[in-house]
């Protein structure tokens, strides 16, 4: 049963959201297994690439350059895509994007749409909006269809159903597709999905996708995938609507030589994903004859305005950061309360919410730096996490209720102590005398009253030495004279 809430406006703070997960051993086992498999595959393929660091360097430089010159490249993309027969729309907010897409579907008299997996559509919560407006949406990625039919929420941006195991998939498919004799063999389950979707690919004339890259130089759009459901949606329908974040642009076709080398290795541990499709506007006789791109801002321009946070938008959505995150690997994705979980979600989600929601996410990290180390475009996630934490704290400390908050009072006292050496030294001396009461003969403190007990409840504390370093240093200087 799924109780996850992936709307950052409604989701509980991470610390609370994580509790049901930590009590669900099956989910934790599924997540740990999946992330371990991907980690190992990635490690093997990255190791064989002798120019991996150089590719990361180039990937980072290209993405940084794009963001710094985003306006020029977007205008170029718009011009070239339009010239090639595409129609470019601009959506300032999630609401505008949903409205534009619904209007386009209404123009087509569409009552159904087939979809390629797109995180952007999850971000703007497109499916429930379209369903409420009477449009039936069929997800076509295997993981997405498991989630849609099972009424589950995604917990990962590349393998969204990694928290669900084969017997759970069997249960969902046999219930919703009416297949009583289905086994839990992944091959048979995949076959069931293939059969279920084939009819939809051939029948539904309207498709919705996201995009991995927009090429400014040519106005082309690229989608990276594995299963071929993307190719089906990009080839068979009459109308294609792609909803894409404004940051997804690349200057030239040739820049794919970097991105395609790092993306699949980072995302799924493959040298190259099975299918990458690139198309330019409309091609007579081949594929959809009506093509729309909806460029989505939804707070991205606000992220762009902050020099330290700007790098958040370099992301190419490979998910390597979550696969390697010691927090994500324990909790899975649902605790993050957003379609973007893991370290990248911890910095992206609160910023997409203008820091009004999901403020607990920058704290859902041990700052170990694994995310930065594996990021193919070198986003310094720990640096951004720290900066966002500072943001949250700076706002919190001004709130009246903080005057009575024990932690804030403690920190305020510490601030006074640490900024005046004489008070600091006096406190050390007092503390030494005070702690002596609790220090056992072996030099360890095993029990303390009140707030100190929260420490000694679980571990011992070394007693304070008779001399501080400062005192020792001063005494030594005196002796030498």
């Amino acid at each position: 049963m799924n109780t996850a809430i992936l709307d950052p406006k409604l989701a509980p703070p991470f610390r609370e959201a994580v509790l049901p997960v930590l009590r669900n051993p099956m989910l934790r086992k599924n997540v740990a297994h999946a992330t371990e498999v991907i980690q190992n595959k990635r490690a093997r393929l990255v190791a064989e690439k002798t120019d991996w660091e150089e590719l990361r360097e180039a990937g980072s430089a290209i993405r940084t350059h794009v963001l710094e010159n985003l306006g020029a490249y977007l205008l170029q993309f718009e011009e070239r895509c339009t010239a090639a027969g595409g129609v470019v729309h601009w959506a300032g907010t999630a609401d505008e994007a949903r409205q534009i897409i619904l209007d386009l579907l209404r123009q087509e008299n569409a009552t159904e749409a087939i979809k390629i997996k797109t995180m952007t559509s999850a971000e703007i919560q497109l499916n429930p909006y379209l369903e409420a407006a009477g449009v039936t949406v069929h997800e076509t990625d295997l993981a997405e269809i498991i989630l849609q039919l099972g009424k589950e929420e995604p917990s990962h941006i590349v393998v969204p159903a990694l928290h669900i195991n084969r017997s759970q998939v069997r249960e969902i498919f046999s219930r919703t597709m009416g297949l009583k004799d289905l086994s839990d063999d992944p091959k048979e389950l995949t076959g069931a999905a293939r059969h279920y979707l084939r009819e939809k690919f051939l029948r539904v004339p309207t498709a919705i996708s996201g995009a991995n890259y927009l090429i400014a130089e040519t106005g082309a759009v690229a989608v990276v995938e594995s299963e071929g459901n993307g190719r089906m949606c990009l080839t068979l329908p009459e109308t294609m609507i792609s909803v894409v974040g404004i940051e997804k642009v690349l200057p030239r076709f040739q820049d794919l030589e970097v991105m395609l080398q790092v993306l699949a290795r980072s995302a799924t541990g493959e040298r190259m994903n099975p299918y990458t499709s690139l198309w330019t506007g409309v091609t007579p006789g081949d594929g959809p004859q009506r093509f729309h791109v909806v460029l989505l801002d939804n707070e991205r321009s606000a992220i762009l305005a902050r020099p330290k946070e700007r790098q958040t938008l370099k992301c190419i959505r490979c998910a390597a950061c979550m696969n390697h995150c010691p927090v994500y690997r324990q909790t899975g994705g649902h605790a993050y309360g957003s379609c973007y979980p893991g370290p990248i979600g911890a910095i992206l989600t609160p910023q997409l919410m203008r820091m009004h929601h999901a403020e607990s996410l920058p704290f859902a990290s041990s700052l170990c730096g694994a995310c930065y180390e594996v990021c193919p475009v070198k986003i310094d996630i720990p640096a951004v996490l720290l900066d966002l934490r500072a943001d949250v704290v700076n706002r919190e400390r001004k709130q009246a209720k903080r005057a009575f908050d024990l932690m804030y009072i403690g920190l305020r006292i510490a601030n006074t102590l640490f900024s005046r050496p004489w008070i600091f030294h006096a406190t050390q001396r007092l503390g030494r005398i005070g702690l002596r009461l609790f220090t056992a003969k072996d030099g360890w403190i095993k029990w303390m009253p009140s707030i100190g007990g929260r420490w000694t409840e679980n571990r011992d504390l070394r007693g304070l030495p008779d001399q501080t370093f400062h005192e020792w240093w001063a005494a030594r200087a005196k002796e030498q004279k």
Partner: protein
Amino acid sequence: MNATVQSRQRILDRIRTATASVAKPAPELRDAYAALPRPYIRRGKKTVEERIELLVERLREYDAEVVETTPDGLPAAIAAQLGASGKHTFVAPAGLDPGFLVGGFDWKIDYDLTTAQIELTEGVVTAASCDIADSGTIVLHHTASEGRRVITLLPDWHLCILRRSQVVETLPEYFDRFETSPALVTWISGPSATADIEMTRIKGVHGPRFLHVILVRD
């Protein structure tokens, strides 16, 4: 419509303000782009033979069947592959060399086949534009001999005919060969696959489940 025009201006204004201190003025943008560091490997160091060997190894890792032949032996090689497939009805792009349409099989030439007609065929035979040994990637630009995208998608069985001179070692070598982007490109690295259920790799979700390659000496 009016709303998106307003949004467009608002978004572009916000981007302009956000990047005011770092954006390059138009005349300098090209140079700034050209100056981006590209320290990665462009050209591979393998000999032609080693390159082909690597490609064959990669394709076989994807469970693709690979055979090599001479230009004279090609029709016989095609006939052997088609014969061994156990299939009878094949679709071919309109620009495929007529010499490749070997006898004894039911050929549907894609002059404008409907989706339903293509769905009824069992296999497809095409050329390709390039092949990248490093990742075992076949690149289709959907030229006349490679066909529309749909014909290499619906049939379950794909035979791809490649010339050895079309094989490059690294991905950047491909981009050096085709500096300007074709309107349509499909990069195919092995048959369609998924690992969405417990990370178990399953071959053949929606695209062709069987990939065969004939490498022709030239």
